[in-house]
């Protein structure tokens, strides 16, 4: 099939992610924390909890609740981001929560809340995915009981080509159809906990994209695992 897109702007192979850096336990005041950087997108996550949930009437005697807050620092985008929650950040907070919820054993924390705060210090596409990777590490770092980790990266379809970890420049390619597909997955079962898409692509291409990111997600899961164990090396 004829395609104008034969090379990625930064020279990566279609199935390669950008370089990744991950570290656990970076915020001493938090119960758990992590830093996750992919290309030029950097996210910090801090977990506080389980802690008492206020207001009292929101407490659930059968289970704890997970509360996620995604925020971009004012200097983390091209133009300055006005401080405070936006509709976009509220939506991302919600999908982040839904991405992590299936693995957290919230029944172990009745009446309590586990707060997860995600802050992006710089962004170049894939920010919600980086946030989820950092948040998952921070939850483990906080000793929260979880069935598994959650790992996340975005897939892309650019002029009918499947790519892994679509970056800012690729998102804005003109003249061809581009689709950006953030995905989060539980590595051991391959269950999907986050799936969004914007752009334009055929159904078969999207399904192929979801399959195509699995090796990258497994690689990222291994990086998250190493970072957590690294913290405890004597």
């Amino acid at each position, binding site marked *: 099939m004829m395609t104008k897109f034969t090379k990625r702007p930064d020279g990566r192979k279609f199935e390669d992610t950008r370089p990744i850096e991950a570290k656990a336990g970076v915020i001493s005041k938090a119960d758990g924390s992590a830093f996750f950087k992919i290309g030029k997108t950097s996210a910090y996550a801090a977990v506080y909890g389980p802690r008492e949930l206020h207001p009292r009437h929101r407490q659930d005697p059968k289970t704890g609740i997970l509360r996620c807050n995604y925020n971009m620092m004012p200097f983390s985008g091209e133009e300055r981001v006005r*401080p405070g929650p936006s509709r976009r950040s509220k939506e991302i907070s919600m999908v982040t929560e839904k991405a992590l919820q299936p693995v957290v054993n919230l029944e172990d924390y009745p009446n309590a809340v586990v707060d997860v705060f995600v802050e992006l210090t710089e962004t170049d596409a894939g920010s919600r995915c980086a946030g989820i990777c950092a948040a998952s590490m921070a939850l483990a770092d906080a000793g929260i009981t979880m069935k598994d980790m959650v790992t996340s990266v975005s897939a892309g379809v650019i002029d009918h080509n499947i790519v892994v970890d679509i970056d800012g420049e690729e998102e804005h390619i003109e003249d061809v159809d581009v689709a950006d597909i953030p995905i989060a997955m539980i590595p051991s079962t391959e269950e999907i906990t986050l799936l969004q898409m914007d752009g334009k692509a055929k159904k078969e291409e999207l399904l192929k994209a979801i399959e195509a990111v699995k090796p990258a997600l497994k690689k990222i899961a291994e990086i998250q695992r190493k970072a957590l164990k690294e913290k405890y090396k004597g």
Partner: protein
Amino acid sequence: MNQDLKNHINEALKKGIRLDGRKKEEFRKIEIETGVVATAEGSARVKCGDTELLAGIKLDVGTPYPDSPDDGVMMVGSELLPLANPEFESGPPKIQSIETARVIDRGIREGKVIDTKKLCIEKGEHVWMVMIDVLPINYDGNLIDLGGLAALAALKNAKMTELKDNKVQYGKRTKQDLPIRSMPIPVTVVKIGENLIVDPTDAEEKVLDARLTVSVLEDDTICAMQKGGNATLSVKDINEMMDLAIKKSQELRKKLEEALAK
């Protein structure tokens, strides 16, 4: 507030020692790094003990204030991110972060750090806007001083961007620095009982009686001050606090210059 703990801190201070073993006039080890945020036109990270914060500069082009048509615009923002400390909550800015932003702003503005006339593009129509944001990632005290240092380092690190039709071309950086003329260093002196200390930790901030932030310029003149805390200060106190602030500003200035030279 636990009076017992405060008495304990006071007793230790009388013997010249603080809870973490520091002397009264001792700052924790400070690390300053610049150019740490790719999306900011200028940035810096400051680590001091367990406090870590980021400062970032964003540039834009806008209309000047009507009473200063050929001056660029500068503003400082700060937020107590809930990520940084269990006591910081989500929600609209608390008075502490508003005060921090305004005190850092005052130091930079009154110290005439930025030559705003050089930021004029077209009088009355287009000027450069310099937006400085200071945010803690991990918080254990002394936001004003460390935030002020980070803001200065970020300003020195910043480069102008290209313009096209009076619109900023983000990502197209030039080699041109911001027009920086001076570096006022803010130093907050904290009074606990009859003792004066600098660089308070979170625990020390909770038991302070009063504090005085003094922004000091290169020639030891003062360009901004702010008193905080519930207790009163005598003129003798203020005199001593100003002297201590001036002395410490010289040390901090050296640290900052060393970091910028790298």
